[in-house]
Protein backbone atom coordinates (compact mmCIF):
# COMPACT_ATOMS: atom_id res chain seq x y z
CA UNK A 1 0.00 0.00 0.00
CA UNK A 2 1.21 3.52 -0.80
CA UNK A 3 2.03 5.52 2.33
CA UNK A 4 0.81 9.05 2.77
CA UNK A 5 3.66 11.56 2.17
CA UNK A 6 3.98 12.68 5.77
CA UNK A 7 4.03 9.02 6.89
CA UNK A 8 6.93 8.31 4.52
CA UNK A 9 8.81 11.17 6.14
CA UNK A 10 7.89 9.97 9.64
CA UNK A 11 8.97 6.38 8.88
CA UNK A 12 12.32 7.66 7.60
CA UNK A 13 13.02 9.17 11.04
CA UNK A 14 12.24 5.97 12.92
CA UNK A 15 15.02 3.49 13.52
CA UNK A 16 14.62 -0.25 13.03
CA UNK A 17 13.32 -2.39 15.85
CA UNK A 18 12.17 0.37 18.20
CA UNK A 19 8.92 0.70 20.15
CA UNK A 20 6.37 3.10 18.72
CA UNK A 21 3.16 4.64 19.98
CA UNK A 22 0.96 6.03 17.21
CA UNK A 23 -1.66 8.45 18.51
CA UNK A 24 -4.75 8.52 16.32
CA UNK A 25 -3.38 5.62 14.31
CA UNK A 26 -6.37 5.32 11.96
CA UNK A 27 -6.37 1.99 10.16
CA UNK A 28 -2.88 1.16 11.41
CA UNK A 29 -1.11 1.82 8.10
CA UNK A 30 2.00 3.40 9.65
CA UNK A 31 2.37 0.76 12.37
CA UNK A 32 1.90 -2.08 9.87
CA UNK A 33 4.51 -0.48 7.62
CA UNK A 34 6.97 0.01 10.48
CA UNK A 35 6.40 -3.58 11.60
CA UNK A 36 6.82 -5.08 8.14
CA UNK A 37 9.73 -2.99 6.86
CA UNK A 38 11.52 -1.90 10.05
CA UNK A 39 10.66 -4.61 12.62
CA UNK A 40 9.18 -2.02 14.97
CA UNK A 41 6.67 -2.95 17.67
CA UNK A 42 4.12 -0.87 19.48
CA UNK A 43 0.55 0.21 19.75
CA UNK A 44 -1.91 2.53 18.14
CA UNK A 45 -4.46 4.63 19.97
CA UNK A 46 -7.67 5.20 18.10
CA UNK A 47 -11.21 6.19 19.05
CA UNK A 48 -13.11 5.34 15.88
CA UNK A 49 -14.81 1.91 15.81
CA UNK A 50 -14.20 1.28 12.10
CA UNK A 51 -10.51 2.18 12.45
CA UNK A 52 -10.10 -0.11 15.45
CA UNK A 53 -11.57 -2.93 13.38
CA UNK A 54 -9.26 -2.08 10.48
CA UNK A 55 -6.28 -2.29 12.86
CA UNK A 56 -7.43 -5.70 14.07
CA UNK A 57 -7.62 -6.87 10.46
CA UNK A 58 -4.12 -5.47 9.82
CA UNK A 59 -2.87 -7.33 12.91
CA UNK A 60 -1.87 -4.04 14.51
CA UNK A 61 -2.17 -3.75 18.30
CA UNK A 62 -4.65 -1.00 18.97
CA UNK A 63 -6.12 0.49 22.13
CA UNK A 64 -9.48 2.17 21.74
CA UNK A 65 -9.29 5.38 23.73
CA UNK A 66 -9.83 9.11 23.51
CA UNK A 67 -6.54 10.98 23.21
CA UNK A 68 -8.09 13.96 24.93
CA UNK A 69 -8.32 11.98 28.16
CA UNK A 70 -4.55 11.65 28.10
CA UNK A 71 -1.96 8.93 28.05
CA UNK A 72 -2.23 8.00 31.73
CA UNK A 73 -2.29 4.36 30.68
CA UNK A 74 1.38 4.61 29.70
CA UNK A 75 4.34 4.87 32.00
CA UNK A 76 7.19 7.36 31.49
CA UNK A 77 9.68 6.58 28.75
CA UNK A 78 7.95 3.42 27.52
CA UNK A 79 8.42 4.21 23.85
CA UNK A 80 11.23 5.27 21.60
CA UNK A 81 9.00 7.45 19.45
CA UNK A 82 5.45 8.73 19.85
CA UNK A 83 3.76 9.75 16.59
CA UNK A 84 0.88 12.14 16.14
CA UNK A 85 0.17 12.42 12.43
CA UNK A 86 -2.41 14.84 11.02
CA UNK A 87 -4.19 14.93 14.38
CA UNK A 88 -2.62 17.82 16.34
CA UNK A 89 -4.85 20.34 14.60
CA UNK A 90 -7.96 18.50 15.80
CA UNK A 91 -6.91 18.18 19.45
CA UNK A 92 -8.56 20.29 22.15
CA UNK A 93 -5.57 20.28 24.41
CA UNK A 94 -2.55 20.68 22.15
CA UNK A 95 -0.09 21.59 24.90
CA UNK A 96 -0.86 18.64 27.13
CA UNK A 97 -0.67 16.10 24.29
CA UNK A 98 2.76 17.42 23.26
CA UNK A 99 3.99 17.22 26.86
CA UNK A 100 2.56 13.71 27.21
CA UNK A 101 4.30 12.61 24.01
CA UNK A 102 7.73 13.35 25.42
CA UNK A 103 6.77 11.91 28.80
CA UNK A 104 5.86 8.44 27.49
CA UNK A 105 8.36 8.53 24.63
CA UNK A 106 11.97 9.54 24.14
CA UNK A 107 11.00 11.47 21.01
CA UNK A 108 7.87 12.83 19.45
CA UNK A 109 6.94 13.28 15.82
CA UNK A 110 4.03 15.41 14.63
CA UNK A 111 2.69 16.23 11.20
CA UNK A 112 0.05 18.81 10.42
CA UNK A 113 -1.29 20.79 7.46
CA UNK A 114 0.44 24.13 6.98
CA UNK A 115 -2.20 26.81 7.46
CA UNK A 116 0.34 29.35 6.19
CA UNK A 117 0.22 27.99 2.63
CA UNK A 118 -0.02 30.84 0.09
CA UNK A 119 -3.28 29.51 -1.36
CA UNK A 120 -4.95 30.00 2.03
CA UNK A 121 -3.93 33.67 1.99
CA UNK A 122 -5.49 34.03 -1.46
CA UNK A 123 -8.71 32.43 -0.25
CA UNK A 124 -8.79 34.77 2.74
CA UNK A 125 -8.10 37.79 0.51
CA UNK A 126 -11.12 36.71 -1.51
CA UNK A 127 -13.10 36.71 1.69
CA UNK A 128 -13.42 32.92 2.06
CA UNK A 129 -12.07 30.32 4.47
CA UNK A 130 -9.57 28.10 2.65
CA UNK A 131 -10.70 24.64 1.51
CA UNK A 132 -7.84 22.63 -0.02
CA UNK A 133 -6.89 18.98 -0.48
CA UNK A 134 -4.96 19.16 2.81
CA UNK A 135 -7.69 21.01 4.72
CA UNK A 136 -10.76 19.74 2.87
CA UNK A 137 -13.43 20.92 5.34
CA UNK A 138 -15.95 23.71 5.29
CA UNK A 139 -15.58 26.10 8.22
CA UNK A 140 -18.86 24.98 9.81
CA UNK A 141 -18.05 21.29 9.58
CA UNK A 142 -14.41 20.78 10.42
CA UNK A 143 -12.59 18.73 13.06
CA UNK A 144 -9.67 21.17 12.74
CA UNK A 145 -9.84 23.58 15.64
CA UNK A 146 -6.14 24.32 16.13
CA UNK A 147 -4.61 24.99 12.73
CA UNK A 148 -1.19 26.60 12.74
CA UNK A 149 1.87 27.45 10.67
CA UNK A 150 5.38 26.00 11.06
CA UNK A 151 6.51 29.16 12.84
CA UNK A 152 3.54 28.93 15.24
CA UNK A 153 4.46 25.35 16.07
CA UNK A 154 8.11 26.19 16.62
CA UNK A 155 7.18 28.96 19.06
CA UNK A 156 4.91 26.65 21.02
CA UNK A 157 7.57 23.91 21.06
CA UNK A 158 10.07 26.39 22.49
CA UNK A 159 7.60 27.49 25.13
CA UNK A 160 6.95 23.87 26.15
CA UNK A 161 10.67 23.12 26.41
CA UNK A 162 10.74 20.85 23.38
CA UNK A 163 13.92 20.72 21.30
CA UNK A 164 13.16 20.30 17.62
CA UNK A 165 15.73 17.93 16.11
CA UNK A 166 14.33 17.52 12.62
CA UNK A 167 11.96 19.40 10.39
CA UNK A 168 10.51 18.60 6.98
CA UNK A 169 8.24 20.93 5.06
CA UNK A 170 6.64 19.07 2.19
CA UNK A 171 4.60 19.79 -0.89
CA UNK A 172 3.39 16.82 -2.94
CA UNK A 173 5.66 14.67 -0.83
CA UNK A 174 8.81 16.56 -1.80
CA UNK A 175 10.85 18.74 0.53
CA UNK A 176 10.34 22.44 -0.13
CA UNK A 177 13.61 24.40 -0.03
CA UNK A 178 12.68 28.00 -0.68
CA UNK A 179 9.78 30.06 0.67
CA UNK A 180 8.91 26.85 2.50
CA UNK A 181 6.62 28.53 5.06
CA UNK A 182 4.43 29.64 2.17
CA UNK A 183 4.87 26.73 -0.22
CA UNK A 184 4.76 23.65 2.02
CA UNK A 185 1.37 21.98 2.44
CA UNK A 186 2.43 19.67 5.27
CA UNK A 187 4.85 20.18 8.14
CA UNK A 188 6.58 17.31 9.94
CA UNK A 189 8.64 17.79 13.09
CA UNK A 190 10.68 15.52 15.30
CA UNK A 191 11.39 16.71 18.81
CA UNK A 192 12.55 15.65 22.25
CA UNK A 193 12.47 17.02 25.75
CA UNK A 194 15.15 19.64 26.25
Amino acid sequence: MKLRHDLVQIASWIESGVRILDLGCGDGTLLAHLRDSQRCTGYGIEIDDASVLACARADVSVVQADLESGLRMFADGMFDTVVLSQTLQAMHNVESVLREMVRVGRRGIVSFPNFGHWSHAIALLRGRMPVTPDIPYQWYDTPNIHLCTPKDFELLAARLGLRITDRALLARGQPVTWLEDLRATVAVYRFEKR
Partner: protein
Amino acid sequence: MTRSAPEPAGSVGEVRPCDRHFSAPLTLASGAQLAGYDLRYETYGTLNADRSNAVLICHALNASHHVAGTYAGQPRSTGWWDNMVGPGKPIDTRRFFVIGVNNPGSCFGSTGPMSVNPQTGRPYGASFPVVTVEDWVNVQARLCDALGIERLAAAVGGSLGGMQALSWAIQYPQRIAHCVAIATTPRLSAQNIAFNDVARTAIRSDPDFHGGDYYAHGVVPRRGLSVARMIGHITYLSGDDMTERFGRSLRTADYAFGYGAEFEVESYLRYQGDKFSEYFDANTYLLITRALDYFDPARGCEGDLVRALQPATARFLLVSFATDWRFAPARTREIVAALIANGREVSYAEIDAPHGHDAFLLDDARYHSLVAAYFDRIHVRLGGTGAPAGGAEEPR
Protein backbone atom coordinates in the same frame (compact mmCIF):
# COMPACT_ATOMS: atom_id res chain seq x y z
CA MET B 1 -19.20 -33.93 18.16
CA THR B 2 -21.28 -36.38 16.27
CA ARG B 3 -23.85 -34.74 14.09
CA SER B 4 -26.94 -36.57 12.99
CA ALA B 5 -28.93 -33.97 11.09
CA PRO B 6 -27.58 -31.43 8.60
CA GLU B 7 -27.03 -28.30 10.66
CA PRO B 8 -28.75 -25.00 9.94
CA ALA B 9 -26.48 -22.32 8.49
CA GLY B 10 -24.18 -20.79 11.08
CA SER B 11 -24.97 -23.39 13.70
CA VAL B 12 -22.84 -26.30 14.81
CA GLY B 13 -26.12 -28.22 14.69
CA GLU B 14 -27.00 -31.05 17.03
CA VAL B 15 -24.46 -31.64 19.75
CA ARG B 16 -23.99 -34.10 22.59
CA PRO B 17 -22.11 -33.52 25.82
CA CYS B 18 -19.24 -35.79 26.83
CA ASP B 19 -18.29 -36.89 30.33
CA ARG B 20 -14.85 -37.75 31.57
CA HIS B 21 -13.78 -38.92 34.98
CA PHE B 22 -10.54 -37.67 36.49
CA SER B 23 -9.27 -39.89 39.29
CA ALA B 24 -6.08 -38.01 40.19
CA PRO B 25 -6.83 -35.93 43.28
CA LEU B 26 -6.95 -32.18 42.82
CA THR B 27 -5.60 -29.89 45.50
CA LEU B 28 -7.53 -26.64 45.58
CA ALA B 29 -6.41 -23.12 46.44
CA SER B 30 -8.10 -23.52 49.82
CA GLY B 31 -5.90 -26.52 50.61
CA ALA B 32 -8.89 -28.87 50.37
CA GLN B 33 -8.71 -31.80 48.02
CA LEU B 34 -11.14 -33.23 45.52
CA ALA B 35 -10.37 -36.95 45.49
CA GLY B 36 -11.69 -37.30 41.97
CA TYR B 37 -14.18 -35.52 39.77
CA ASP B 38 -16.17 -35.68 36.58
CA LEU B 39 -16.14 -33.04 33.89
CA ARG B 40 -18.89 -32.55 31.38
CA TYR B 41 -17.80 -30.85 28.18
CA GLU B 42 -18.67 -30.36 24.55
CA THR B 43 -16.47 -29.88 21.52
CA TYR B 44 -17.23 -28.44 18.10
CA GLY B 45 -15.13 -28.49 14.97
CA THR B 46 -12.10 -30.66 14.32
CA LEU B 47 -8.76 -30.72 16.07
CA ASN B 48 -6.10 -30.26 13.39
CA ALA B 49 -3.18 -32.61 12.85
CA ASP B 50 -0.72 -30.64 14.98
CA ARG B 51 -3.39 -30.05 17.64
CA SER B 52 -2.85 -26.31 17.53
CA ASN B 53 -6.33 -24.99 16.76
CA ALA B 54 -8.09 -25.60 20.08
CA VAL B 55 -10.09 -22.74 21.56
CA LEU B 56 -11.34 -23.05 25.12
CA ILE B 57 -14.54 -21.21 26.00
CA CYS B 58 -14.75 -20.38 29.71
CA HIS B 59 -18.22 -19.90 31.12
CA ALA B 60 -19.50 -17.32 33.55
CA LEU B 61 -21.84 -17.62 36.51
CA ASN B 62 -24.90 -19.38 35.17
CA ALA B 63 -23.68 -20.87 31.90
CA SER B 64 -22.15 -24.23 31.14
CA HIS B 65 -20.27 -26.46 28.73
CA HIS B 66 -23.17 -26.09 26.30
CA VAL B 67 -21.76 -23.20 24.30
CA ALA B 68 -23.28 -23.77 20.87
CA GLY B 69 -25.71 -25.91 18.93
CA THR B 70 -28.79 -27.71 20.18
CA TYR B 71 -29.62 -31.07 21.71
CA ALA B 72 -31.59 -33.63 19.75
CA GLY B 73 -35.32 -33.17 20.13
CA GLN B 74 -34.90 -29.95 22.16
CA PRO B 75 -35.23 -27.09 19.69
CA ARG B 76 -35.01 -24.49 22.48
CA SER B 77 -31.75 -25.84 23.86
CA THR B 78 -29.46 -23.48 21.93
CA GLY B 79 -26.06 -23.03 23.57
CA TRP B 80 -25.34 -19.84 25.52
CA TRP B 81 -22.82 -18.38 23.08
CA ASP B 82 -24.28 -19.69 19.84
CA ASN B 83 -24.04 -16.22 18.25
CA MET B 84 -20.25 -16.32 18.75
CA VAL B 85 -19.35 -19.94 18.03
CA GLY B 86 -20.24 -21.87 14.89
CA PRO B 87 -19.47 -22.22 11.20
CA GLY B 88 -19.01 -18.70 9.82
CA LYS B 89 -19.38 -17.18 13.28
CA PRO B 90 -16.64 -15.02 14.87
CA ILE B 91 -15.11 -18.13 16.45
CA ASP B 92 -15.44 -20.24 13.34
CA THR B 93 -15.80 -23.96 14.00
CA ARG B 94 -14.68 -24.70 10.45
CA ARG B 95 -11.26 -23.47 11.53
CA PHE B 96 -11.10 -24.03 15.26
CA PHE B 97 -11.67 -26.94 17.60
CA VAL B 98 -13.83 -25.35 20.27
CA ILE B 99 -14.14 -26.75 23.78
CA GLY B 100 -16.79 -25.83 26.32
CA VAL B 101 -16.42 -27.29 29.81
CA ASN B 102 -18.63 -27.12 32.86
CA ASN B 103 -16.55 -26.02 35.83
CA PRO B 104 -16.51 -28.13 38.98
CA GLY B 105 -18.82 -26.66 41.59
CA SER B 106 -21.34 -25.81 38.90
CA CYS B 107 -24.57 -27.72 38.47
CA PHE B 108 -24.68 -28.83 34.86
CA GLY B 109 -23.01 -32.21 34.97
CA SER B 110 -19.52 -31.71 36.34
CA THR B 111 -18.87 -32.61 39.95
CA GLY B 112 -20.46 -30.06 42.24
CA PRO B 113 -22.50 -29.68 45.41
CA MET B 114 -25.36 -31.74 43.92
CA SER B 115 -23.04 -34.67 43.17
CA VAL B 116 -22.78 -37.62 45.50
CA ASN B 117 -19.66 -37.55 47.63
CA PRO B 118 -18.20 -41.04 47.19
CA GLN B 119 -16.92 -40.94 50.77
CA THR B 120 -20.34 -40.41 52.34
CA GLY B 121 -22.76 -41.66 49.71
CA ARG B 122 -24.69 -38.40 50.05
CA PRO B 123 -24.64 -35.18 48.03
CA TYR B 124 -21.73 -32.89 48.89
CA GLY B 125 -24.09 -30.03 49.66
CA ALA B 126 -22.49 -27.54 52.01
CA SER B 127 -19.35 -29.68 52.27
CA PHE B 128 -18.33 -29.08 48.67
CA PRO B 129 -15.05 -27.16 48.91
CA VAL B 130 -14.88 -23.54 47.83
CA VAL B 131 -13.26 -23.41 44.39
CA THR B 132 -11.43 -20.52 42.77
CA VAL B 133 -10.85 -19.30 39.25
CA GLU B 134 -7.33 -20.71 39.51
CA ASP B 135 -8.72 -24.12 40.52
CA TRP B 136 -10.98 -24.11 37.48
CA VAL B 137 -8.09 -23.25 35.20
CA ASN B 138 -6.11 -26.16 36.66
CA VAL B 139 -9.03 -28.46 35.94
CA GLN B 140 -9.41 -27.09 32.42
CA ALA B 141 -5.70 -27.72 31.83
CA ARG B 142 -6.22 -31.34 32.86
CA LEU B 143 -9.05 -31.63 30.38
CA CYS B 144 -6.74 -30.26 27.70
CA ASP B 145 -4.16 -32.89 28.71
CA ALA B 146 -6.80 -35.56 28.34
CA LEU B 147 -7.76 -34.26 24.90
CA GLY B 148 -4.10 -34.22 23.86
CA ILE B 149 -3.90 -30.44 23.61
CA GLU B 150 -0.58 -29.07 24.76
CA ARG B 151 -1.25 -25.46 23.79
CA LEU B 152 -4.50 -23.61 23.23
CA ALA B 153 -4.81 -21.32 20.25
CA ALA B 154 -6.95 -19.21 22.57
CA ALA B 155 -8.81 -19.15 25.84
CA VAL B 156 -11.92 -16.98 25.60
CA GLY B 157 -14.45 -15.82 28.14
CA GLY B 158 -16.72 -13.02 29.23
CA SER B 159 -17.20 -11.76 32.78
CA LEU B 160 -16.15 -14.58 35.14
CA GLY B 161 -15.13 -16.45 31.99
CA GLY B 162 -12.80 -13.58 31.14
CA MET B 163 -11.17 -14.00 34.55
CA GLN B 164 -10.47 -17.62 33.67
CA ALA B 165 -8.99 -16.67 30.29
CA LEU B 166 -6.80 -14.11 32.06
CA SER B 167 -5.78 -16.63 34.67
CA TRP B 168 -4.83 -19.11 31.94
CA ALA B 169 -2.35 -16.55 30.64
CA ILE B 170 -0.84 -16.20 34.12
CA GLN B 171 -0.97 -19.82 35.28
CA TYR B 172 -0.06 -21.56 32.03
CA PRO B 173 1.76 -18.99 29.89
CA GLN B 174 3.33 -21.67 27.71
CA ARG B 175 0.00 -23.32 27.03
CA ILE B 176 -1.99 -20.41 25.62
CA ALA B 177 -1.22 -18.41 22.49
CA HIS B 178 -4.05 -15.89 22.73
CA CYS B 179 -6.22 -14.63 25.57
CA VAL B 180 -9.57 -13.07 24.74
CA ALA B 181 -11.12 -11.56 27.86
CA ILE B 182 -14.40 -9.71 27.51
CA ALA B 183 -16.37 -7.56 29.97
CA THR B 184 -14.12 -8.63 32.79
CA THR B 185 -12.12 -7.19 35.66
CA PRO B 186 -8.84 -7.89 37.44
CA ARG B 187 -10.74 -7.90 40.74
CA LEU B 188 -14.21 -7.27 42.12
CA SER B 189 -14.89 -3.89 43.68
CA ALA B 190 -16.38 -3.52 47.15
CA GLN B 191 -19.70 -2.77 45.42
CA ASN B 192 -19.48 -5.99 43.37
CA ILE B 193 -18.75 -8.04 46.48
CA ALA B 194 -21.59 -6.31 48.31
CA PHE B 195 -24.06 -7.34 45.60
CA ASN B 196 -22.79 -10.91 45.80
CA ASP B 197 -23.16 -10.92 49.56
CA VAL B 198 -26.75 -9.72 49.36
CA ALA B 199 -27.46 -12.52 46.90
CA ARG B 200 -25.83 -15.10 49.12
CA THR B 201 -27.61 -13.79 52.19
CA ALA B 202 -30.92 -14.15 50.38
CA ILE B 203 -30.13 -17.81 49.68
CA ARG B 204 -28.73 -18.60 53.10
CA SER B 205 -31.62 -17.02 54.96
CA ASP B 206 -34.22 -19.03 53.04
CA PRO B 207 -35.72 -21.50 55.54
CA ASP B 208 -35.41 -24.19 52.87
CA PHE B 209 -31.63 -23.75 52.69
CA HIS B 210 -30.91 -26.01 55.68
CA GLY B 211 -27.31 -24.90 55.91
CA GLY B 212 -26.72 -26.03 52.34
CA ASP B 213 -27.95 -29.62 52.84
CA TYR B 214 -31.41 -29.02 51.45
CA TYR B 215 -31.11 -32.01 49.11
CA ALA B 216 -31.60 -34.33 52.11
CA HIS B 217 -34.80 -32.48 52.97
CA GLY B 218 -36.17 -32.79 49.47
CA VAL B 219 -36.51 -29.01 49.13
CA VAL B 220 -34.77 -26.19 47.29
CA PRO B 221 -34.25 -22.65 48.67
CA ARG B 222 -36.17 -21.37 45.69
CA ARG B 223 -37.18 -18.01 47.13
CA GLY B 224 -33.66 -17.12 48.19
CA LEU B 225 -32.22 -18.23 44.87
CA SER B 226 -34.85 -16.26 43.03
CA VAL B 227 -34.03 -13.07 44.95
CA ALA B 228 -30.32 -13.67 44.33
CA ARG B 229 -30.99 -13.87 40.62
CA MET B 230 -33.14 -10.74 40.68
CA ILE B 231 -30.31 -8.79 42.29
CA GLY B 232 -27.76 -10.20 39.87
CA HIS B 233 -29.96 -9.48 36.91
CA ILE B 234 -30.28 -5.80 37.82
CA THR B 235 -26.51 -5.48 37.80
CA TYR B 236 -26.24 -7.05 34.34
CA LEU B 237 -28.41 -4.37 32.75
CA SER B 238 -27.71 -0.69 32.35
CA GLY B 239 -30.02 1.87 33.92
CA ASP B 240 -30.86 3.30 30.51
CA ASP B 241 -31.56 -0.15 29.14
CA MET B 242 -34.03 -0.84 31.95
CA THR B 243 -35.70 2.51 31.40
CA GLU B 244 -36.03 1.78 27.72
CA ARG B 245 -37.36 -1.73 28.22
CA PHE B 246 -39.71 -1.13 31.13
CA GLY B 247 -39.83 2.51 32.07
CA ARG B 248 -42.54 2.90 34.69
CA SER B 249 -45.03 0.84 32.72
CA LEU B 250 -47.71 -0.80 34.76
CA ARG B 251 -49.22 -4.20 34.09
CA THR B 252 -52.38 -3.08 35.81
CA ALA B 253 -54.64 -0.25 34.67
CA ASP B 254 -53.73 1.79 37.74
CA TYR B 255 -51.94 1.45 41.06
CA ALA B 256 -53.41 -1.42 43.05
CA PHE B 257 -52.04 -0.08 46.33
CA GLY B 258 -50.51 -3.44 47.18
CA TYR B 259 -47.25 -5.30 46.70
CA GLY B 260 -47.92 -7.47 43.70
CA ALA B 261 -45.94 -7.24 40.49
CA GLU B 262 -47.63 -4.06 39.29
CA PHE B 263 -44.72 -2.59 37.38
CA GLU B 264 -43.48 -4.35 34.26
CA VAL B 265 -39.97 -4.40 35.67
CA GLU B 266 -41.17 -6.24 38.78
CA SER B 267 -42.95 -8.81 36.71
CA TYR B 268 -39.90 -9.30 34.52
CA LEU B 269 -37.48 -9.67 37.41
CA ARG B 270 -39.74 -12.04 39.32
CA TYR B 271 -40.14 -14.16 36.23
CA GLN B 272 -36.37 -14.24 35.70
CA GLY B 273 -35.83 -15.14 39.34
CA ASP B 274 -38.42 -17.91 39.31
CA LYS B 275 -37.16 -19.37 36.07
CA PHE B 276 -33.59 -19.35 37.33
CA SER B 277 -34.49 -20.98 40.63
CA GLU B 278 -35.98 -23.90 38.74
CA TYR B 279 -32.76 -24.91 37.02
CA PHE B 280 -29.91 -23.52 39.06
CA ASP B 281 -28.46 -24.90 42.26
CA ALA B 282 -28.28 -22.62 45.29
CA ASN B 283 -24.98 -24.03 46.57
CA THR B 284 -23.48 -23.47 43.14
CA TYR B 285 -24.61 -19.85 43.29
CA LEU B 286 -22.79 -19.43 46.59
CA LEU B 287 -19.65 -21.11 45.26
CA ILE B 288 -19.45 -19.25 42.01
CA THR B 289 -20.09 -15.83 43.50
CA ARG B 290 -17.35 -16.61 46.02
CA ALA B 291 -14.98 -17.51 43.22
CA LEU B 292 -15.78 -14.11 41.71
CA ASP B 293 -15.06 -12.37 45.03
CA TYR B 294 -11.75 -14.14 45.51
CA PHE B 295 -10.33 -13.52 42.05
CA ASP B 296 -7.49 -11.04 42.41
CA PRO B 297 -4.29 -12.11 40.65
CA ALA B 298 -2.48 -9.03 41.97
CA ARG B 299 -3.15 -10.05 45.56
CA GLY B 300 0.01 -12.12 45.72
CA CYS B 301 2.02 -9.19 44.31
CA GLU B 302 1.09 -6.51 46.84
CA GLY B 303 -1.71 -5.37 44.57
CA ASP B 304 0.63 -4.79 41.65
CA LEU B 305 -1.21 -5.98 38.55
CA VAL B 306 1.81 -5.28 36.35
CA ARG B 307 3.84 -7.79 38.33
CA ALA B 308 0.94 -10.24 38.44
CA LEU B 309 0.74 -10.23 34.66
CA GLN B 310 4.50 -10.50 34.16
CA PRO B 311 4.44 -14.25 33.50
CA ALA B 312 1.77 -13.88 30.80
CA THR B 313 3.24 -14.17 27.32
CA ALA B 314 0.07 -14.62 25.27
CA ARG B 315 -1.30 -12.08 22.84
CA PHE B 316 -4.37 -10.39 24.26
CA LEU B 317 -7.67 -9.04 23.05
CA LEU B 318 -9.71 -7.22 25.66
CA VAL B 319 -13.19 -5.86 25.11
CA SER B 320 -15.39 -3.85 27.43
CA PHE B 321 -18.80 -2.24 27.05
CA ALA B 322 -19.38 1.43 27.75
CA THR B 323 -22.59 0.92 29.77
CA ASP B 324 -21.29 -2.03 31.82
CA TRP B 325 -21.25 -0.65 35.35
CA ARG B 326 -20.76 -4.06 36.96
CA PHE B 327 -17.35 -4.55 35.33
CA ALA B 328 -16.77 -1.07 34.01
CA PRO B 329 -14.41 -0.26 31.10
CA ALA B 330 -12.01 1.35 33.59
CA ARG B 331 -11.34 -2.09 35.10
CA THR B 332 -10.43 -3.56 31.72
CA ARG B 333 -8.24 -0.53 31.02
CA GLU B 334 -6.26 -1.45 34.15
CA ILE B 335 -5.55 -4.84 32.61
CA VAL B 336 -4.61 -3.23 29.30
CA ALA B 337 -2.25 -0.79 31.02
CA ALA B 338 -0.59 -3.58 32.99
CA LEU B 339 -0.10 -5.65 29.84
CA ILE B 340 1.35 -2.68 27.99
CA ALA B 341 3.70 -2.02 30.91
CA ASN B 342 4.89 -5.60 30.40
CA GLY B 343 5.33 -4.98 26.69
CA ARG B 344 2.72 -7.58 25.73
CA GLU B 345 0.83 -7.54 22.48
CA VAL B 346 -2.62 -6.30 23.39
CA SER B 347 -5.58 -4.81 21.62
CA TYR B 348 -8.49 -3.25 23.41
CA ALA B 349 -11.90 -2.18 22.22
CA GLU B 350 -14.52 -0.29 24.16
CA ILE B 351 -17.87 -1.02 22.55
CA ASP B 352 -20.49 1.66 22.93
CA ALA B 353 -23.38 -0.76 23.42
CA PRO B 354 -26.42 0.19 25.53
CA HIS B 355 -26.99 -3.18 27.21
CA GLY B 356 -24.68 -3.08 30.22
CA HIS B 357 -22.79 -6.18 31.31
CA ASP B 358 -25.13 -8.46 29.34
CA ALA B 359 -23.80 -6.95 26.11
CA PHE B 360 -21.06 -9.57 25.92
CA LEU B 361 -23.71 -12.20 25.16
CA LEU B 362 -25.69 -10.14 22.67
CA ASP B 363 -25.38 -9.48 18.97
CA ASP B 364 -23.45 -6.35 18.15
CA ALA B 365 -21.87 -5.95 14.73
CA ARG B 366 -18.89 -3.93 16.01
CA TYR B 367 -18.14 -6.41 18.77
CA HIS B 368 -18.60 -9.53 16.68
CA SER B 369 -16.69 -8.12 13.68
CA LEU B 370 -13.76 -7.35 15.94
CA VAL B 371 -13.68 -10.82 17.48
CA ALA B 372 -14.05 -12.30 13.98
CA ALA B 373 -11.11 -10.21 12.73
CA TYR B 374 -8.99 -11.24 15.70
CA PHE B 375 -9.71 -14.93 15.20
CA ASP B 376 -9.01 -14.52 11.51
CA ARG B 377 -5.49 -13.38 12.43
CA ILE B 378 -5.14 -16.32 14.85
CA HIS B 379 -6.11 -18.62 12.00
CA VAL B 380 -3.46 -17.02 9.79
CA ARG B 381 -0.81 -17.44 12.50
CA LEU B 382 -1.72 -21.12 12.65
CA GLY B 383 -0.86 -21.31 8.97
CA GLY B 384 -4.32 -20.79 7.54
CA THR B 385 -5.14 -18.42 4.73
CA GLY B 386 -6.63 -15.11 5.83
CA ALA B 387 -9.85 -13.37 4.93
CA PRO B 388 -12.80 -15.15 6.49
CA ALA B 389 -14.26 -17.93 4.41
CA GLY B 390 -17.53 -16.15 3.89
CA GLY B 391 -20.12 -14.82 6.26
CA ALA B 392 -17.83 -14.08 9.18
CA GLU B 393 -16.90 -10.52 8.25
CA GLU B 394 -19.95 -8.58 9.29
CA PRO B 395 -22.17 -10.75 11.47
CA ARG B 396 -25.52 -9.16 12.08
